[in-house]
């Protein structure tokens, strides 16, 4: 587990190869569990922080409806983190959907199962910029675009579901959500991923293989 250099990547590659012969989309259990863990941790953290937030936004009354858009980006963050660590197609969509399942099934989210739809849209938006670079580019810009598209994709769905169309506030809502998406759903994700890499806990995942493989080659 914690022997980062030679044996781990080989072993991982072997299992990956065995799986790809059977089904190119089959996931290793380790990657699946990582998506679940991300969903659980962020589900729990949202839940901790949201307690206070909901109370605040109820106290703020109608303004709370607008104010909660500032935090929208926080809901997107699971997808870019998952994509950056696992680096496979659909990682972002699956991570978001699993996170929403955990919120609905285990944490009793008020949105109900419609959250699955929103999660799939967010995941698709957040994953698209990484997919366009064929899961190779993890620069600040890609993360920022990821947050932007994640927020953008889900906005039109939320706008329909919550009846924002035809309100005077429509564009204000869009602007706040996009900015929040870029900052909380994109740039913050890069900070977290970089932090995780430094701790070494993700060395045995694709992100670690990419990094350590580079180190190895440069020697």
């Amino acid at each position, binding site marked *: 587990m914690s022997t980062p250099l030679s044996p781990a990547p080989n072993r991982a590659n072997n299992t990956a190869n065995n799986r790809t012969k059977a089904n190119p989309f089959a996931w290793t*259990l380790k990657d699946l569990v990582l998506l679940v863990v991300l969903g*659980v941790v962020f589900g729990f953290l949202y839940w901790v922080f949201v307690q206070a937030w909901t109370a605040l936004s109820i106290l703020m009354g109608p303004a709370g409806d607008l104010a909660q858009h500032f935090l929208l980006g926080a*809901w997107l963050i699971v997808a870019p983190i998952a994509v950056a660590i696992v680096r496979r197609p659909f990682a972002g969509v699956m991570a978001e959907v699993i996170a929403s399942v955990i919120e609905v099934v285990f944490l*009793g989210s*008020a*949105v109900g*199962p419609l959250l699955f739809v929103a999660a799939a849209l967010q995941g698709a938006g957040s994953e698209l910029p990484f997919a366009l670079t064929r899961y190779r580019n993890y620069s600040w810009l890609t993360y920022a675009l990821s947050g932007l598209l994640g927020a953008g994709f*889900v906005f039109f769905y939320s706008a329909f579901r919550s*009846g924002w169309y035809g*309100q005077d506030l429509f564009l204000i809502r869009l602007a706040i959500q996009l900015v929040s998406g870029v900052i909380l759903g994109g740039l913050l994700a890069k900070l977290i991923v970089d932090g995780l890499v430094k701790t070494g806990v993700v060395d045995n995942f694709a992100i670690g293989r990419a990094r350590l493989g580079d180190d190895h080659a440069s020697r």
Partner: protein
Amino acid sequence: MSAPPIVVPAVAGMGRPATSVPRTPLTGPLARRNPTLKLALLFVVSAGLVFILDPVTPAVLYLLAAAAVVATARIRTRTLLLAQLPFVAFGAGLLVVNALSRPGEILWEAGILRVSVEGLVIGGSLALRTLVIGILSVAFALTTEPVSLMTSLHQHARLGARLTYAILAGYRMLQEMPREWVTIRQAHAVRAPLRSDGTLPRGVGALARAAFSLLVVSVRKGERMAQSLESRGLGLSPRSTWRPVPLVAADWVMVGGVLVVLVGVFVISAQLGFLEGPAALFG
């Protein structure tokens, strides 16, 4: 996602994730129904309601849903009422925002504030929709045991064994998370410079550090979990299920009943001229 993001299932303080205490056994007809079908019905009803934008239809559905929940869910009245408070507050917010920010026939005006008829109608519709989905979600959450829901999804919705058990392992992790959080905060407390009154730093920075530690610890734990699941051969062969969840005729009766009522209300509402679709948004 704009609705109040997470509702604590309103029962017992922190709700499920906080406690690993076994919950009170679920009784009542609704609790005995198949969880997968309940989830699917909740999805269908919520999705159907999204396309309704008049206040009358959701109001009728709310009354019917409340009657059905009271009759079949055996939830204490106080619990049921308290659980709906967030939805009432959120719905009231929706009503006010729409009344104030939607152009249309002006009902009342003062300075920059104006209330339009269209705003009240659409706001009322959205607020009532929130209440309908709210009471059904509460009933679902309070009568459905998460583990049997996952088992049932595996049995009846063909959710893969590996994903099912990965999520169940995640559920276990979630239950332990409050304790993990306290442990991390205490570990930080041992070393952190305390504030002048001797208490822990509680700023955003301290909480963010604890949150990051939680993430790191959990990723590490997840890797161990994956290895132990894999070393037991999870997903390699067809498996038997511990405590299989039944799927019986009564479940299909429930599905039929709910769908008949839902469609019936839509049709009657349309014939009486109350029903409005999304076009109402664009005036």
